[in-house]
C-alpha cells in the first residue's frame, strides 16, 4: 500500500526555467491518477520527480508516508513506463522483464514465477524469447508494462505510454491498462496530454497548466464543474464554446447579451450566484452538446435563437455546425436528421441549465 503526496513541490531547471511552480497533491493508495495538460506544462517533470529522476528544487514528495526527496530511484520502489518504452534492445522480452529482479538478487524461480505471471496478465507468454526489435508497437508497450508489473512496486508511473501507438491500438491498450490496474491495484500516476485518455482511465484527473495545478477531480466533476476557464476549455471535445457576453440586470432577472444581440435569460436559481457580476463583461461558456436544434422546449431554461451556419461537419451519429457571432466561432451539435445549410439562418436551442459563466479577468468559473 502506498499513497503519494506532493507538498509545495517546485522544480527549477538550470537556467531558471520553473517547470513546476509549487504543487500540492495527495494520491490515495490504489488510486489511478492522471496528470493531463498541454505539452510543456510540467507533467513529465512532476512524474520524474516522483520517480527520482529529477531533483526536487523545493517542497517534498512522500511515497507511502516516507519522504523520498533524497532517495535515489532504485530505492523508491517505483516502476516506470516510458513513452518510447525504453526496452533494452539487446535483451529478450524475458530478460527485459527479469532485469530489475536480477539486479535485486531475487532467486531464479521467483523471477520466473513473476515474469510468467506478468506475461499471463498481459498475454505475451509466447513472446518471451523475442528481442524488442521483433515486436510490434503494441507488444512493446505490453512488455514495458510487464517490466513494471514484475517488480510489484509501490507505485506505477506512466509517461505518455500510448503516444507512439496508432489510434486504434491506443484505444485497445487503454482498456488493457485499466484492466491491469483493476487486477494489481497498484497506485498509479499516469501522464498524458490527451484528455480523452485522462477521462477514460482516471479515478481522479489532475489538470496542469504552466507548472501549476488548475483543478483536481473525478472526470465527471471536471466535465460538469470546471473550476477555471482553462479546464473548461481543455476538457471535452469539441471544446466548450466561450462567447464574450454582457450580464445585464433587468426586471429582477439576469440576462446575457451575446454578440449579434442575442439575449438569453439566466436561470432563476442562478441569479444569486451571478449577482456580483451583474452589469459587467463575462464569458458565456456552453458545450456544443448543449447547443442543439430546438428540442425539449417544454423544459425550463431552454432558450432559442437563430444563426446562419458557416461550416457543416456531418460526422454520422451527429452533425457539428459552426456559426459565427460577430467573429466568435460557436460550435453546435445537431441531430444528423436536421437539415442544415451553409449560410441559411436556422433556429438553435441552448440548454442554459448547463451554462457556465467565467469571470474574464481571473479566469474563474462561477
Amino acid at each position, binding site marked *: 500500500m502506498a499513497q503519494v*503526496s506532493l507538498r509545495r513541490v517546485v522544480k527549477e531547471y538550470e537556467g531558471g526555467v520553473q517547470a513546476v511552480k509549487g504543487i500540492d497533491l495527495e494520491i490515495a493508495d490504489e488510486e489511478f491518477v492522471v496528470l493531463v495538460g498541454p505539452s510543456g506544462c510540467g507533467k513529465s517533470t512532476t512524474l520524474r520527480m516522483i520517480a*527520482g529522476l529529477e*531533483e*526536487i528544487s*523545493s*517542497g*517534498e514528495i*512522500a511515497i*507511502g*508516508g*516516507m*519522504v523520498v*526527496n*533524497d*532517495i*535515489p530511484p*532504485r*530505492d*523508491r*520502489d517505483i516502476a516506470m513506463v516510458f513513452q518510447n518504452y525504453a526496452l533494452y534492445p539487446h535483451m529478450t522480452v524475458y530478460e527485459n522483464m527479469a532485469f530489475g529482479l536480477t539486479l535485486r538478487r531475487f532467486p531464479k524461480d521467483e523471477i520466473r514465477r513473476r515474469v510468467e505471471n506478468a506475461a499471463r496478465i498481459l498475454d505475451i507468454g509466447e513472446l518471451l524469447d523475442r528481442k524488442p526489435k521483433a515486436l510490434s508497437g503494441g507488444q512493446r508497450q505490453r512488455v514495458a508494462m510487464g517490466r513494471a508489473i514484475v517488480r510489484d512496486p509501490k507505485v506505477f508511473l506512466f509517461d505518455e505510454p500510448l503516444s507512439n501507438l496508432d489510434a486504434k491500438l491506443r484505444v485497445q491498450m487503454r482498456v488493457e491498462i485499466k484492466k491491469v490496474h483493476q487486477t494489481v491495484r497498484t497506485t498509479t500516476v499516469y501522464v498524458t496530454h490527451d484528455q480523452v485518455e485522462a477521462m477514460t482511465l482516471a479515478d481522479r484527473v489532475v489538470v496542469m497548466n504552466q507548472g501549476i495545478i488548475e483543478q483536481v477531480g473525478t472526470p465527471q466533476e471536471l466535465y460538469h464543474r470546471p473550476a477555471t476557464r482553462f479546464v473548461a476549455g481543455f476538457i471535452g471535445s469539441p471544446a466548450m464554446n466561450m462567447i464574450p457576453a454582457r450580464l445585464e440586470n433587468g426586471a429582477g432577472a439576469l440576462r446575457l447579451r451575446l454578440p449579434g444581440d442575442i439575449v438569453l435569460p439566466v436561470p432563476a436559481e442562478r441569479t444569486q450566484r451571478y449577482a456580483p457580476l451583474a452589469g459587467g463583461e463575462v464569458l458565456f461558456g456552453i458545450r456544443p452538446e448543449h447547443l442543439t436544434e430546438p428540442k425539449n422546449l417544454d423544459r425550463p431554461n431552454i432558450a432559442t435563437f437563430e444563426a446562419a451556419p458557416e461550416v457543416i461537419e456531418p460526422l454520422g451519429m451527429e452533425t457539428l455546425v459552426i456559426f459565427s457571432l460577430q467573429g466568435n466561432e460557436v460550435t453546435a451539435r445537431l441531430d444528423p436528421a436536421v437539415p442544415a445549410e451553409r449560410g441559411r439562418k436556422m433556429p438553435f436551442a441552448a440548454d442554459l441549465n448547463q451554462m457556465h459563466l467565467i469571470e474574464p479577468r481571473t479566469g474563474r468559473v462561477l
Partner: protein
Amino acid sequence: MADGNVLAAPAPAPAAVAPARPGALRRLARRRSTLAFVLTVPLLTVIGGLVVWPFFYAIYLSMLNKRMTRFVGLDNFAFLLSRETFQLVIMQSVIFAVGAVVAKALIGFILAHVLHALPAKGQRKWRGMLLVPWVIPPAISTLAWWWLFDPSYSAINWMLMGIGAPPVAWLGEPGWARFAVILVNVWYGAPFFMIMYLAALKSVPDQLYEAAAIDGATGWQKLRYVTVPMMKNIIAITVLFSLIVTFANFDIVRILTNGGPQDRTHIFGTYAFQVGIQSGDIPLGAAVSLFMFPVLALLAVFVLRDVTRRSREMAG
C-alpha cells in the same frame, strides 16, 4: 549504498517529517561527477602525458643547441629557414599534401558515384575490392610500389618498353620521384574518400532526386544542385582531415625515396626524422616538426568548426 537502508526504517508519519534535508540527491550528483572524473583519468593521463606534455617539451627542446647544453632561443628556426634544403621541404610538403588530397578527393568522388550507381547486389563486392589499398598497412604496401619502381626490375618499365616507350627512373629523377610519392599516397588514400562520400551519397534522400527529376533537372544539374550542396560539409571535413594526415605523412616517403634524390622528396616528417634521429640533432629535428604546427592548428580549427556544425545539423 547507504541510502538503500532508508526504506527499511519504519515510515515516519508525514507530518512529523522535518523540512527536507537539502541535497542528499545533490550530494549523489556530486558523487556522480566525481566518478565521471575518475573514469576519465586514464584518458587525461594519455592525452596529458603523451600528447600535451611532449608538445611543450618539443618547444623547449627546439630552443636548445645541438648538444642540448645551451638555450639558443629561436636560432634553430632561423637557421632552418635560411637553408635551401628546408625551403625545399616546405615547398615539397605543400605540393605533396595539396596534390595528393586533390587527386584523392576527385577519385574518391568519382568512385563513390560509380558505386552508388551500381545495383545494390554487386556494390558490396566492388567496394570490397576498391578498399584493398586502404586496408593494407601503408608501410607494407609501399614495399610493393618500391619494387614496382625498382631501377632495374621495374615491372612498370617492362610494360612501357613493351609499348616502345623509354624506361623511367621513377625514384631517381626528382620530378618523377615527387610524382611517385604522390601517386602512392593517392593509391592508398583514395578509398577512404570513396567510402566517406559513398556514405554521404546514400544519406541523400531519394525524394530529392525524384523531385529534381520532376522539375526537369538533367543528371549534371542533379549533381550540381542536389548532391554537392548536400555533401558540402562532409567533403570539407574529409578534405581538411586528409590534408592534416597527408601533410604529416611519414611512411610512404621514408620507404620509397627516403627523401632522395638530393632531398627533393623530403617532407616535414621524414626530414625531422633524418635531422633529429639519424643525425642526432634533437633540437633541430624538434624545430622541423614544430614548423608543421601552425598549418596543422589552422586546419584543425576548420575541421572542428565543420564537425561541430555537422553534429548540430544532425541533432536539429
